[in-house]
């Protein structure tokens, strides 16, 4: 057996790094601080709670964050991590270490979106801390270029860099392969992601690989296969909570809404503090007309939302409506009032409050008040425009329909469908809503009709461009983008044809600006859209040449 020489880093490696210690106990903060100073760390700040920690990260970029999971009242460690990563307060190159009091299994499994880079179990010694920190530095240094590319969402470059490292067969080969599968997935290369994951599974059925392959099946709309995989995963490990989330999502795509709810309910009993899961359960229970469950889940989601980046006014508003419907009118209005102070200066919150009030007044038979709320909702919706998102538009549909304005409701629906013709999940919700409100006798063919229309518009434009009639193609897509400003495919095509035109006929400042505008629209809708990255690469190349 070979023995590996101890890793002796130059102390300067850690000396140069900046640290933030987050712990609610002064003694603990002092102890960790002492350990770090003993290791040679000089750039070091402390925070006593989640709020101060976020404030510190807003003011300064840290290389290392050592955060205790339990932080007393307010945010817990997981919520600090979520906010830091979600808001890009720390880059991928930063190391987030979660300090926990005991066996961390439950917490690891409970996390939905983000996992820390490493866990440390209390009590730990200075020597252990030093070794762990050095390992993390080594790891991050090794992946620095890849992570920089990922930060830019430039997955193609990240994959090229990663492949070079993999070819050298380093010690952490398997870690790199796992990362590669993840990046292939994010880049939209499902074929390659599947090949890698299947290779790993053939050797050993690792939970993360099964989950990853299930996600690939989902992305390819092969929902039966995805369902089978998630179910298998849960059979092996019934506490793997993110598998429940994905299984529930898949079951909804298979129109098995009640089964999906059952799955989420199980996950929520195992790990009740994941806000996104409680939100999902609440909304699903509303679809299933299970007011009891919806009310419970949404109340929990609102409570968790107080300290979370994932809070959203639509959740509070849904809770208010449910409570009113269940007979707790005063409580419902109070929830709306609290919501407005929780989201100060948010037009979106005002919109959701107005829409909810409209429904509540209308149910109470107060027609005048309902009309006034509708008026206000419409104004706000107009002001916010596309930023409100299709979910707000669908809620507006509901409100308009309730107050008898079915023409407006249908118009709104049409707008939602043409702008989102490729989003299956959303279109399903649209279909369900149309049936519920009785807005159309055959929603499926109605949606299919619009879908075909949009596909045709895109195909026509592409044909024009292919046959060299760039000017016509340009007019065609720019007009389409005006009518469907939130349609990703149309906006990307408009940008693409503009670029083709500039390649042919010379670069113009105005046209470059318009390309940027179209790309910005898509980025706002989905900053990881694979098409967006491709067109953006074309744009970059062109602006470099000019």
């Amino acid at each position, binding site marked *: *057996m070979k023995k590996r020489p101890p890793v002796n880093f130059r102390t300067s490696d850690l000396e140069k790094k900046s640290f933030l210690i987050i712990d609610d106990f002064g003694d603990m903060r002092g102890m960790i601080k002492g350990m770090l100073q003993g290791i040679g760390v000089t750039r070091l700040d402390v925070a006593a709670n989640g709020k101060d920690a976020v404030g510190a990260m807003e003011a300064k970029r840290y290389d290392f964050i050592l955060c205790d999971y339990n932080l007393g009242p307010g945010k817990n460690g997981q919520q600090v991590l979520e906010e830091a990563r979600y808001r890009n307060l720390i880059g991928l190159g930063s190391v987030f270490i979660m300090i926990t009091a005991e*066996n961390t299994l439950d917490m690891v499994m409970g996390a939905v979106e983000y996992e820390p880079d490493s866990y440390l179990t209390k009590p730990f*010694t200075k020597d252990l801390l030093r070794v762990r920190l050095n390992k993390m530095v080594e790891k991050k240094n090794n992946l620095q270029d890849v992570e920089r590319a990922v930060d830019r969402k430039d997955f193609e470059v990240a994959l090229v860099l990663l492949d070079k490292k993999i070819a050298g067969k380093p010690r952490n080969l398997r870690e790199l392969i796992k990362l590669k599968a993840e990046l292939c997935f994010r880049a939209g290369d499902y074929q390659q992601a599947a090949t890698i994951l299947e290779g790993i599974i053939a050797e050993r059925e690792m939970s*993360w690989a099964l989950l990853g392959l299930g996600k690939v099946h989902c992305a390819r709309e092969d929902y039966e296969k995805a369902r089978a995989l998630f179910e298998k995963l849960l059979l092996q490990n019934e506490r793997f909570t993110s598998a429940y989330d994905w299984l529930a999502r898949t079951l909804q795509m298979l129109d098995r809404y009640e089964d999906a709810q059952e799955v989420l309910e199980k996950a929520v009993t195992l790990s009740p503090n994941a806000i996104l899961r409680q939100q999902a359960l609440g909304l699903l229970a509303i679809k299933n007309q299970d007011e009891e469950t919806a009310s419970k889940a949404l109340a929990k989601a609102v409570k968790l939302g107080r300290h979370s980046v994932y809070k959203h006014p639509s959740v509070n508003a849904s809770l208010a409506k449910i409570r009113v419907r269940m007979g707790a009118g005063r409580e419902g209005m109070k929830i709306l009032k609290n919501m407005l102070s929780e989201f100060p200066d948010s037009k979106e919150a005002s919109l959701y409050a107005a829409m909810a009030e409209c429904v509540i007044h209308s149910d109470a038979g107060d027609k005048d008040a309902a009309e006034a709320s509708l008026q206000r909702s419409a104004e706000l919706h107009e002001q916010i425009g596309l930023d409100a998102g299709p979910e707000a538009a669908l809620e507006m549909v509901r409100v308009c329909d309730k107050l008898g304005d079915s023409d407006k409701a249908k118009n709104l629906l049409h707008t939602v469908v043409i702008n989102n013709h490729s989003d299956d999940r959303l279109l399903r919700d649209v279909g369900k809503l149309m049936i519920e409100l009785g807005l159309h006798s055959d929603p499926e063919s109605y949606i299919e009709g619009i879908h075909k229309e949009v596909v045709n518009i895109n195909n026509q434009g592409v044909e024009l461009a292919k046959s060299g009639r760039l000017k016509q193609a340009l007019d065609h897509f720019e007009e389409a983008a005006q009518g469907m400003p939130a349609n990703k495919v149309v906006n990307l095509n408009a940008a693409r044809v503009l670029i083709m035109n500039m390649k042919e006929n010379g670069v113009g400042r105005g046209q470059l600006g318009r390309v940027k505008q179209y790309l910005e629209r898509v980025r706002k809708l989905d900053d990881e859209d694979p098409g967006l990255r491709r067109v953006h690469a074309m744009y970059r190349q062109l602006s470099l040449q000019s």
Partner: protein
Amino acid sequence: MKFADVLASLIHDMKNSLGLVINTLEEFTADPEDARLDRKRIVALQQEAKRLNNHLIELLTLYKIENERISPHIEEWNVGDFLEELVIENRASAEAKKVQLEYSSDPELYGYFDEGLIRGVINNLLGNGLRYTSSRLLVSGGQEKGFLVLRVEDDGEGFPTEMLDVQAGGCQSDETTGEHTHLGLYFAGLVASMHRNKDRQGHISLSNGHTLGGGCFSLWLP
């Protein structure tokens, strides 16, 4: 062994540790002149505190296994890195007892296991090893018969024959002698058996005179 027996036995052991801690602290505080603290006794304190901590983790884990039917969270770990950390965690205790504590593993060796669970088991084994070894303690990782084998071995007297017999009986003995060591076996065996890969299951084995001549505890993980 039933959970209730395990509980009683663990509490008994922890009470002993705490008693020792309290007595030593009393000695310190009773004599105000004794300002220069005796290093040897401090190390003893530290060791008992660690022992307590290990037991509490063990207890918590057993409770979870018993009540929540936890399944292990299997991840891929570099065995050398993992063992290095364990050696560093126990280095101070080893130095105080003048025991040479080392690890060895192929730096390219990867293993699949629940890090938290196995860490608990090995920490216990190292704690016990420090008690029974004479001068050396080695923790090693290797690949044998398609299993990852983690071994803790020493150059002490080795395991008594009745313990080597116990393992043949699958840790079912409720003998009162050496109760605690049996408990360690029970815990390690339970954690090992929770590790499965396809149709293979983890297990433990005890032997004497492996490479250092003393007791050798092996954890076999599929």
